[in-house]
């Protein structure tokens, strides 16, 4: 088709915009970079823990400076890779639960988030969330720092970041580039989780536009409030690895989007919920757990005792939550399912996320047990209220995230970190936690409603009925996830030179 016509298509607006911004930035980049670098040479560079360098070859200039801790840098590099593998993990986890005809399209929600949000984050998302505004009022609500647009003003060798909000982390700075990437992966997975609520019926173009806008309007400010030293952080609320920023926000947004999209054709009757491959779902859950170690223990931003404590809390709560979900199933219908243990693991991971770097070690199995049982209940809500939260993004992430945020206020202990909770007699912490959770609920709900409304009125959010019936794999992507036929038919003994 003619390129000119194509560029007039409404569905391509976002891509056109993205490319325009990108090219513009690319062209002005060298100039801008120089200015920025001059203007703020050591913006975030905090020299620390310099080891005596007696290297074989003498190195000079910037290269000789080592103002970061190599051990913590090693862990943050590994952690960021671990969080990245959560996207393929999520794709398998979600992809295995939907029907065969929507397998690829569901996986695609995670992969497209990787593409779109990484680029958004690099261009301006990181700045919005973690930039330091010179104006303290602005800083309460959003980050604004031109040197962090496309990282133009960042010296990749000397700029370092200590752990925000982690007391022991400040000792071990890491290069800011890896901190940026670590946080980028958080920004990616959060909207990708929403796909669980809107699965099997959302248009791909609408999905792409949605996550781009949602990341900008909902995620970046929310991350700033708590982790970018915004108003919630200043108040005293804590969220170690994203119970509110990631899970409440995605779960609640999923619920709102699911209601606005409407139910899938045939819901709740029919065999609409027959998973196409639970083996892949289990594998996805395994990859999620694996990657979540980067997510949670990496949130210490250092290879320190806090990271190790977070690791332990994550493991025990997750294991316990899997057992608890299976236990709830046993009580309910006498079949501990494999989807159940996988869902329980995810529920446990969600609930321990805000808590893992704050709560006493002995409380992790309790948090896990509650997460498993409560989220099992959460997954039943849709039957009662009649919305179609297809893969239970709200039931597990929304509810589990809320539970975790509150339990952080209960079990936070100064034996682990600097924040005290109810068990240390610090009751006000519960109120702070309620604020942070409530704030995430409100911001996510309103932001999502606005975005979905706008998209619905412009490019449309739901696939045509024909596509829904025939499957999104073919309808959206012109492909099929599962093939029929074509299995080979070996028929005879082969000649000996065949191999």
């Amino acid at each position, binding site marked *: 088709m003619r390129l000119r016509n194509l560029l007039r298509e409404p569905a391509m607006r976002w891509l056109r915009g993205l490319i325009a911004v990108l090219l513009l930035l690319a062209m002005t980049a060298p100039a801008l970079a120089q200015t920025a670098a001059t203007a703020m040479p050591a913006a975030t560079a905090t020299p620390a823990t310099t080891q005596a360098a007696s290297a074989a070859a003498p190195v000079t200039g910037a290269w000789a400076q080592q103002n970061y801790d190599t051990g913590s840098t090693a862990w943050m590099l590994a952690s960021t890779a671990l969080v990245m593998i959560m996207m393929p993990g999520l794709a398998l986890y979600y992809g295995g639960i939907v029907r065969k005809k929507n397998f690829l399209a569901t996986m695609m929600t995670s992969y497209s988030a990787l593409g779109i949000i990484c680029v958004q984050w690099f261009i301006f998302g990181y700045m919005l969330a973690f930039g330091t505004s010179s104006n303290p009022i602005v800083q309460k609500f959003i980050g604004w720092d031109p040197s962090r647009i496309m990282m133009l003003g960042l010296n990749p060798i000397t700029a370092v970041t200590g752990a925000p909000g982690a007391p022991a982390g400040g000792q071990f700075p890491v290069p800011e580039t890896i901190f940026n990437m670590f946080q980028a992966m958080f920004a990616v997975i959060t909207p990708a989780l929403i796909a669980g609520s809107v699965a099997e019926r959302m248009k791909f173009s609408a999905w792409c536009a949605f996550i781009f806008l949602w990341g900008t309007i909902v995620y970046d400010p929310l991350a700033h409030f708590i982790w970018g030293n915004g108003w919630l952080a200043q108040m005293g609320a804590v969220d170690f690895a994203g119970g509110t920023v990631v899970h409440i926000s995605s779960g609640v947004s999923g619920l709102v989007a699911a209601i606005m999209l409407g139910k899938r054709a045939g819901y709740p009757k029919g065999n609409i*919920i*027959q998973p196409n491959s639970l083996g892949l779902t289990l594998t996805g859950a395994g990859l999620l757990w694996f990657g979540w170690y980067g997510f949670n223990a990496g949130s210490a931003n250092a290879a320190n005792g806090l990271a190790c404590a977070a690791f332990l809390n994550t493991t025990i709560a997750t294991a316990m939550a899997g057992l608890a979900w299976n236990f709830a199933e046993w009580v309910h*219908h006498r079949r501990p*399912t494999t989807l*159940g243990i996988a*869902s329980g693991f995810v529920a446990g991971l969600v609930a321990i996320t805000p808590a893992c770097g704050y709560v006493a070690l002995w409380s992790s199995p309790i948090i896990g047990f509650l997460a498993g049982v409560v989220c*099992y209940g959460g*997954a039943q809500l849709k039957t009662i209220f009649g919305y179609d939260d297809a893969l239970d993004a709200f039931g597990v992430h929304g509810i589990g995230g809320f539970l975790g945020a509150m339990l952080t206020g209960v079990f936070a202990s100064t034996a682990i970190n600097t924040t005290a909770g109810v068990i240390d007699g610090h009751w006000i912490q519960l109120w702070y936690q309620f604020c942070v959770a409530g704030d995430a609920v409100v911001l996510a709900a309103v932001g999502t409603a606005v975005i979905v409304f706008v998209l619905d009125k412009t490019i449309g959010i739901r696939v045509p009925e024909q596509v829904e019936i025939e499957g999104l794999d073919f309808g959206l992507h012109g492909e099929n996830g599962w093939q029929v036929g074509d299995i080979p038919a070996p028929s005879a003994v082969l000649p000996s030179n065949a191999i």
Partner: protein
Amino acid sequence: MKLIIAIIQPHRLEAVKQALSNVEVFRLTVSDVQGYGRQKGHTEYFRGKELQVNLIRKVRLDIAVNEAFVKPTIDAIVQSARSGPGGKGQIGDGKIFMLPLENVIRVSDGTQGGEAI
């Protein structure tokens, strides 16, 4: 010549094949089908929700036989396909259909009729 179509329980397939070879019926075609009949489906679970699966997996056998083999074939199937305790037979054990078959042609050498079966 007749074409005998039998719908049986998947796990009886080995036994039926054995019984058929006892009556010297060595050729047949097997395919996977799903059945819907007197037998009730089963319940699977999805996060606490019940999921009624009412199409039940069956195996279909297509067997072309000469007249002389019709009765032995049917008898062999009926006896070996029963799954109940003591071979008593129970709901879901299947059906046999007998259709007229006008001709058979073997592809490899073009032989026609009864001897091609």
